[in-house]
């Protein structure tokens, strides 16, 4: 085993064996799944609360024709308003309809026993309107009226397509793209910051415990630094892979139990036509159907995850190099604050760029920030779900690789001097000078 791989193994093992690693790795995705599950459960719970409305119909034509909606149930009543007022165990409200409702449609009243909402009132009014409209049409004595009505009823659903360079078009879900952009971009920021800081803390710890001198009598400082950086990168990748696996399993379980089977079949077919016809039939939002369909498209999701990993490794190496250099230059974490500024600043800029890219992935700002290495990891993963031309991806990755090689080289130069500097906190000028020292 080469020396660097011995170091990588130690850095990796020491971290993944920690109880805190196990807890955050298992609990974080479960927490996320639980949160989403609770939100869905709350939504279904709310829709289960059906409002029962008793209808006193003086006209005799409306009550039996009123169509129940998901949340409103109309019940024709024989009782008088006073009788219902005095005893109404499951009744939400009373609707009274005047005898002349067809000619005077405003002669309707709604009495409720708890506060009403505009949404409910509107749906009650719509229900009455359609019955009255039908009654009015009947007066014209048109043959085959119900069939004609069915035929003219029209509903338009816009389906969005993303046409890529190869000319093939694919139904795109902006809901899923936005969710992915946000999740991946934010995860990138978190991972680079947290694991980069781990590199710095590891270096400071080695410096404080004076173990460095023993280490560098066996290995080159550069090997030690790279061993630590790579070891921690493997910890991050391991954590990410476990998260994806848990989310995939839990997500599949959730989809199977919560999403109606026919919606699932439609989404699995995945064709725009299938999505559209299903959405039309079921009343589900077509974009949600498309989102589900995209989410079950493994090549799409796989591509997103692959891009994330490539940019994570590149971005992490770039920042970890800087964190290692800072760690080597100081004696304790407090002293590192001042040097962390130039590291966190571009990270925060990347976060802002990511939010901008989510809203407008083709804007000039999103484009440039996704090409410039310091911000590209976060901004590019936020743009990719919307589709990015191949040349932009390649340019961005190439620039990232070049810059992390330069950065790791510079960091190594600072590191090998910094690890033997104790006491006085160096200035930026001194750090720059260390780069020119002979090894």
């Amino acid at each position: 085993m080469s020396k660097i791989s011995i170091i990588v193994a130690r850095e990796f093992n020491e971290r993944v064996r920690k109880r805190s690693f196990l807890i955050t790795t298992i609990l974080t995705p479960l927490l996320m799944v639980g949160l989403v599950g609770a939100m869905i459960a709350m939504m279904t719970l709310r829709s289960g609360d059906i409002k029962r409305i008793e209808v006193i119909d003086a006209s005799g034509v409306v009550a039996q024709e009123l169509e129940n909606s998901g949340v409103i149930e109309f019940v024709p009543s024989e009782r008088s308003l006073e009788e219902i007022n005095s005893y109404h165990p499951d009744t939400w409200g009373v609707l009274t309809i005047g005898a002349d409702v067809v000619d005077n449609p405003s002669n309707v009243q709604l009495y409720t026993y708890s506060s009403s909402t505009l949404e409910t009132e509107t749906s009650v009014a719509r229900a009455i309107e359609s019955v009255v409209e039908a009654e009015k049409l009947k007066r014209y004595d048109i043959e085959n009226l119900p069939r004609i009505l069915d035929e003219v009823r029209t509903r338009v659903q816009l389906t969005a397509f993303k046409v890529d360079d190869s000319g093939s078009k694919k139904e795109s879900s902006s809901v899923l793209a936005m969710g992915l952009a946000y999740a991946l971009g934010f995860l990138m920021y978190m991972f680079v910051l947290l694991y980069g800081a781990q590199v710095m803390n590891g270096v400071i710890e080695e410096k404080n415990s004076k173990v460095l001198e023993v280490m560098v009598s066996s290995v080159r400082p550069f090997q030690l630094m790279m061993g630590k950086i790579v070891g921690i990168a493997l910890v991050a990748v391991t954590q990410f892979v476990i998260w994806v696996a848990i989310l995939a399993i839990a997500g599949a379980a959730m989809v199977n139990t919560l999403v109606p089977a026919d919606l699932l079949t439609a989404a699995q077919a995945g064709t725009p036509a299938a999505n559209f016809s299903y959405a039309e039939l079921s009343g589900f939002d077509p974009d949600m159907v498309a989102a589900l369909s995209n989410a079950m498209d493994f090549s799409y999701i796989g591509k997103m995850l692959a891009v994330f990993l490539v940019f994570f490794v590149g971005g992490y190496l770039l920042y970890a190099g800087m964190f290692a250099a800072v760690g080597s230059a100081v004696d304790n974490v407090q002293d590192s604050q001042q040097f962390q500024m130039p590291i966190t600043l571009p990270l925060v800029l990347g976060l802002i760029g990511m939010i901008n890219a989510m809203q407008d992935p083709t804007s000039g700002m999103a484009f440039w920030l996704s090409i410039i290495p310091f911000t590209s990891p976060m901004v590019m993963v936020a743009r990719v779900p919307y589709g990015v031309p191949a040349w932009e991806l390649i340019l961005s990755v190439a620039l990232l690789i070049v810059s992390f090689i330069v950065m790791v080289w510079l960091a190594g130069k600072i590191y090998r001097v910094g690890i033997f500097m104790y006491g006085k906190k160096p200035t930026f000028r001194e750090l720059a000078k260390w780069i020119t020292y002979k090894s």
Partner: protein
Amino acid sequence: MKYIIEAQHVLKQYGAFRALDDVSVAIPRGSVYGLLGPNGAGKTTLIRIMNRITAPDSGRILFDGHDIQPSDVERIGYLPEERGLYKKMRVGEQVLYFAQLKGLSRAEATRRAKEWFVRFRIEEWWGKKVEELSKGMAQKVQFVTTVLHRPELLIFDEPFSGFDPLNAELLKNEMLRLRDEGATIIFSTHNMASVEEVCTHITLINKARNILSGTLDEVRERFGATEVREVVRMSKSMNDIFIEAVGQTNSAL
């Protein structure tokens, strides 16, 4: 090859500070070589250069007759003045880790480490974390990590600091045993009594320069010849030689 390691005209500069100025030292095989000098004289810098921790600005280091190579560090054992172990790591794991970095296989390292733990009667510390150890215990563990790969050259920087007299004696005996087994030992110290007791050669470094080198007898000869004490045929103590030699160069500068 007569010398295991040689420094030839070594010069090292840190910014405006010259840590070593044209220092040449040759360490004969099988010797116990004392590296003496006041604090800040440049001893630790010379030791680091011999360990390939830093490189000289000019001059050469010859190991076993050839320019020192990266792989040569596997034939050197180094106990730095500032002792350090990974605090959160378990003792056994740590010993194996350092040994593997010195080129031993894990199995071989385990076998040898167990022997040393038995010899030092610290077997029960194998699974403990370093932070649970007392300072003296950690020193013993550190000593084991220094010698486990059976280096031909051992470099000890202030090996006795921090040891109680009993453990210092134990350590000294182990050093002598390693010498008897064929190792060459360089050690830097301020403890002149131990120099007289175990060293065969010394080099005295002051203000970045080598001001005095030779076997113990040669050194005594040179300084004793002009001294009144010679009349009573009493060897001058190493302590006196140290003070006198440093005083001479300081006043000459």
